[in-house]
């Protein structure tokens, strides 16, 4: 499995990884539970150990559309690192979710005290954001929509 | 053993301001005319038939440009009753030679031709059909080419994309084996910027192409116009040759304006 190297923690040098995980507290969230809501205070974040989470957007009058799903090793939540520390999206557990939960204010404080640690954490979070931004842009292209798609598409 | 007779597609032919030459091209398909009439129901074609059936029509061929207020209403009606609308000829696709009025004061034009211009109602511009309603396919030419017209019709019947390339006349000239009149004789020729389709007739007769199929899909006037000048055209000549049967085609229009601004 590739999880350990390529999850969020894989993006941190070992020393900083250990330091961060020291803040972790293992939690279990029951299937379908709302983890956070759009606009709520981003005071925590999670690294998923097993199960998954769906990020969604509140649209009045219809069920919140899911814009992305996260799975094992993924960082759940990055709004805690940037002011105003409010969630951009909502999140819901898909199936039973086990995760390491972090207290955002404590991590931020540690980052403030130790710039090297802070830089590493910020960099790892930024890498996650960059990946998601890239993925989002790719999806914006609606590549699978007509026209296009593999050798089977060419047409006169 | 034949399947049950399928409904024949219904064809309509319409005319706006034009010379009739493009719809005549249909009647010039002497070898195919009667066969065509077996495959399609010619439901409306005033030049050829006094029996006019009401719409809807599967395929409407529209000749001519829009030059009156009634034309505007009529083309909207035609669009509404036509499943596919194909414009035929430079008048319908680019406003035709009568779009030369677009550069002038129409009142002056009227006064030049008519003693009592007030008797004549006309718009200030001559515009292509596509300026008024969505068009499914534009067949170029002043006049259109007979083979291309048949291709458009048979392609429509077969559900095929018509093989009507938009590249330059040079392609056809070379395929025909004609010696390039510009390179070998220094004759000004619009071939490199003109839409293919005629079969490169003019160079085959030793004259330069005069652009009656309008601009091709990939033109480069800044590089091309100096060539016309090299071969003896002055500004006015360049403007005139661009301002003829496809004068209102955007590429020709822009190039001629740029010449005048020099």
């Amino acid at each position, binding site marked *: 499995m590739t999880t350990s190297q390529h999850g969020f923690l894989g993006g941190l040098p070992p020393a900083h990884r250990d330091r961060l995980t020291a803040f972790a507290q293992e939690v279990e969230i029951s299937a379908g539970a709302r983890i956070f809501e759009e606009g709520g205070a981003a005071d925590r974040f999670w690294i998923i150990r097993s199960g998954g989470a769906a990020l969604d957007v509140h649209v009045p009058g219809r069920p919140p559309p899911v814009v992305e799903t996260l799975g094992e090793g993924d960082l759940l939540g990055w709004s805690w690192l940037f002011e105003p520390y409010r969630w951009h999206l909502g999140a819901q557990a898909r199936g039973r979710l086990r995760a390491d939960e972090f207290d955002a204010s404590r991590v931020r404080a540690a980052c403030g005290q130790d710039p090297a640690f802070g830089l590493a954490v910020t960099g790892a979070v930024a890498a996650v954001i960059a990946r998601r931004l890239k993925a989002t842009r790719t999806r914006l292209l609606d590549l699978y929509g007509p026209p*296009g798609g593999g050798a089977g598409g060419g047409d006169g | 053993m034949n399947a049950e007779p399928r409904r024949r597609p219904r064809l309509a032919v319409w005319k706006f301001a034009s010379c009739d030459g493009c719809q005549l091209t249909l009647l010039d398909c002497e070898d195919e005319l009667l*066969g065509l009439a077996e495959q399609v129901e010619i439901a409306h074609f005033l030049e050829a038939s006094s029996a006019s059936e009401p719409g809807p029509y599967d395929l409407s061929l529209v000749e001519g440009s829009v030059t009156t207020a009634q034309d505007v209403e009529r083309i909207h009606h035609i669009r509404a009753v036509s499943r596919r609308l194909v414009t035929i000829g430079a008048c319908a696709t680019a406003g035709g030679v009568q779009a030369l009025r677009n550069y002038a004061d129409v009142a002056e034009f009227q006064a030049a031709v008519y003693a009592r211009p007030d008797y004549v109602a006309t718009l200030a511009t001559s515009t292509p059909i596509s300026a008024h309603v969505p068009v499914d396919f534009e067949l170029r030419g002043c006049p259109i080419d007979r083979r291309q017209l048949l291709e458009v019709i048979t392609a429509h*019947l077969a559900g095929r994309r018509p093989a009507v390339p938009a590249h330059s006349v*040079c392609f056809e000239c070379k395929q025909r084996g*004609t010696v390039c009149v510009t*390179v*070998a004789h220094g004759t000004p020729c619009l071939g490199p910027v003109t839409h293919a389709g005629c079969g490169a007739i003019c160079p085959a007769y030793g004259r330069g192409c005069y652009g009656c199929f309008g601009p091709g899909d*990939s033109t*480069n006037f800044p*590089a091309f116009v100096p060539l016309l000048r090299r071969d003896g055209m002055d500004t006015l000549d360049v403007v005139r040759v661009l301002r003829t049967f496809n004068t209102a085609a955007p590429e020709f229009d822009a190039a001629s304006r740029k010449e005048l601004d020099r």
Partner: protein
Amino acid sequence: MATDAGGSAVIDKDGLDALVAVLAGRGRTVIGPIVRDGAIVLAELGSGADLPYGWGVELEAGTYRLRAREDGAAFAHSAGPQSWKTFLHPPRVREWSADRSADGDLVVTEETGTPPAYAFLGVRPCDLRAIAIQDRVLTGGRHADQGYRGRRERAFLVAVECTDPGATCFCVSMGTGPAAGPGFDLALTEVLDAGGHRFLVRAGSEEGESVLADLPRSPADPATREAAHERVAGAADRMGRSMPPVDLRTLMRETLTAGRWDDVAARCLTCGNCTMVCPTCFCTSTEDVTDLTGDHAERWRHWESCFDLDFSHLPGGSVRESPRSRYRQWATHKLGTWFDQFGSSGCVGCGRCIVWCPVGIDITEEAHALHQERESRAARPPGPESPA
């Protein structure tokens, strides 16, 4: 016995007339240069008298002019507006027809019939190479173009070595001339001197020898041999153009993002003339046509060009939208990727693309410019890369 051991001889104008007659007598359609519409074009020869005796050409980028010559030479001209592909790989052919029967079955009928037996008289060494290159493209792969193969296998090639290259010729750069390489049935070298107007003839095939044997001829004398050799060697020194002395394949690969492509795109009309006159350009498109009943369909194939905007059409649009990319495709294919695809250069240095480009774009000049751009880039100290 007027043919020596190497299968060579000397013929005069009567011999040339006889050559046309003998080839025609063997059931061949003899194609050669004639003067028509202010140019030396390739057309069927009624007799040797149709040859362009006393005509030469003046060539420049974008300009072709016929010029009368006083010496009466028949082959003192370089490549004209067409090439032999007009006959071997015709502009328009029907590939097959198909009929749909009442029960919906489909019957496909291949184009059959005996291909024409051509004799090409006056194949320039560059064109001889061009024919070999098209042979490789159209018959040398896993699938062969059967129509081409049929026409090609039956064609008899009479090469004529170049003695009077044009200002746009660069066969020396491409290693294709002015002496004839392999592949001819007969090769002629025109000699005009105090010894008279005559042609050194060499046979390159059994049929060539057999045709030569039917001609009025004299043995190949040393003086004629020497004169022929000198004229061809002299031609090599009078090439009007040259390519930069570098590996063109590498040059093309390393300059795909060069600024020069924008420069040439500003001049290029994307009219496609260069590809149509090129003796190796082979690209085609097909069109499907139906009759009015809709039950008879045909597949036609016609010349196409990478300058056509639609050439690289995909469902979403064209891959090569910009003129820059279309000119680059043509030039890099010709000089570079042709090696990858078919094991040789696609350019034979005939100069047709230079002459028949209405605005006179010169592929040798472009190659030189690309070469210079690469050199100056290499000379520049490494700086920050521009953002991707």
